[in-house]
């Protein structure tokens, strides 16, 4: 395990998110330490994705505050600074179909870090090698399998050298035989010291890589626990019922 520093890199206090009258997040408090790997579990609709999407303000929130690396997450000048530091991997990949795989990865460094295309593409190739698809660099996303596309998505996020990586159900849209290759890549990132928040339904994987499990239901955090304790002896009745449902079928 990477060394976890005590200073929280993410602080969420009383974060409340409403869609109309529906409260998707109900006054959520959460602190994440630098280098920590946090896995969010819970039934669908419990607010896990909404929570991590608030961290780079893809979702706005009505109440409370989120501080990322000392910067308040809100509309305005500082927002792009936050987004430069926070990488995101999406369930539906969201690769840019009009760009080659290589340029999908190089675009951020060129536009945001003002790197030259040559330098950014060279680095993009290295990153694509690292996620095991160097030979696909000059194809377009549509020519790749789902698992390959998601690895491009991870390389694209890594290209910005983020301090924090958010994974929003990165394997949920994949055919079962491709889940493993993506999980392998994610596992390879764990010891790199990057803070990670991961929403997933892969329970075995969660237990292996998480420093802490955050269990959510109905827009609230019901339990925060060490993974071994969470999976063997959860303290909340809700978590017990959830684990029964997902593990014994």
């Amino acid at each position, binding site marked *: 395990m990477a060394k976890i520093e005590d200073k929280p890199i993410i602080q969420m206090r009383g974060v409340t998110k409403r869609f109309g009258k529906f409260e998707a997040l109900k006054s959520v408090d959460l602190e994440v330490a630098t280098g920590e790997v946090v896995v969010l579990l819970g039934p669908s609709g419990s607010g896990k994705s909404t929570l991590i999407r608030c961290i780079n303000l893809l979702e706005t929130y009505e109440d409370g505050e989120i501080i990322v690396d000392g910067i308040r997450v809100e509309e305005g000048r500082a927002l*792009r600074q936050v987004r430069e530091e926070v990488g995101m991997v999406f369930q539906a990949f969201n690769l840019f179909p009009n*760009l080659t795989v290589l340029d999908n990865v190089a675009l951020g460094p060129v536009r945001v870090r003002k790197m030259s295309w040559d330098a950014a593409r060279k680095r993009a190739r290295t990153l694509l090698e690292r996620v095991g698809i160097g030979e696909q660099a000059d194809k377009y996303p549509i020519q790749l399998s789902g698992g390959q596309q998601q690895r491009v998505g991870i390389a694209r996020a890594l290209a910005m050298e983020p301090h924090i990586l958010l994974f929003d159900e990165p394997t949920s849209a994949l055919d079962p035989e491709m889940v493993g290759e993506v999980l392998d890549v994610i596992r390879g990132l764990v010891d790199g010291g990057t803070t990670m928040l991961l929403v997933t339904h892969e329970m075995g994987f969660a237990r292996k890589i998480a420093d802490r499990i955050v269990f959510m239901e109905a827009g609230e955090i019901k339990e925060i626990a060490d993974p071994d304790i969470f999976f063997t002896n959860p303290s909340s009745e809700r978590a017990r019922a959830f684990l029964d449902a997902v593990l014994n079928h």
Partner: protein
Amino acid sequence: MDIVSTFFNIDVLVRYMPLLLEGLWRTIALGFLSIVLGLIGGLVLAMGRLYGAAPIRFLVIGYVDVFRAIPVLVWLVIVYYALPFLGIRLSPFASAATALTMISSAYTAEIYRAGIEAIPRGQFEAGQSIGLSTFDLMRDVILPQAIRIVVPPLTNNSINVMKDTALASVVAMPDLLKQATQAQALAANPTPLIGAAILYLILLLPLVRLVAVFEKRLGRSARR
């Protein structure tokens, strides 16, 4: 007098062809300028509509609604005959170009907006998540995808603008139609009008075909 010598009188047509071609050239110049300016103006309006602050958004909505509602001929006549009272005196060509551009911009703005809104939300989110500015997001990600969607309706709109140039004859601009009516009066024969109609068709029929080709190609790639 038989039909051929009345409507398809070769002598008359040959005699007045230089006059018609002069008009055709002005029609093309006016149409081309108004189309290009309308494409640029519409993009600016669409950006204001989608990403501007609230007052800008409402101004754009008002502009787009008004200029889609007002008849081209009415607005053209206002620009040419009414603006001089404010001390703004434009030539027939400038009046027509101004009026056509202002109205075309309103239509193209709506086309761009629809094209941009057809791009999945995930594309915007992915661009934002790597820290792209709105400008870079548009240039590198959204507009290159939207352009494929908007080319057929933009070509359609361009055809309409080119056709509407004929209205400029009302403000004494010697465009193709004006030259043709003049030639008809001089020759006391309607052949020049038929000639003008044929020239309009030669100019616009290929564009109409082009839209059909674009739409077919877009339909194919959408099914892929």
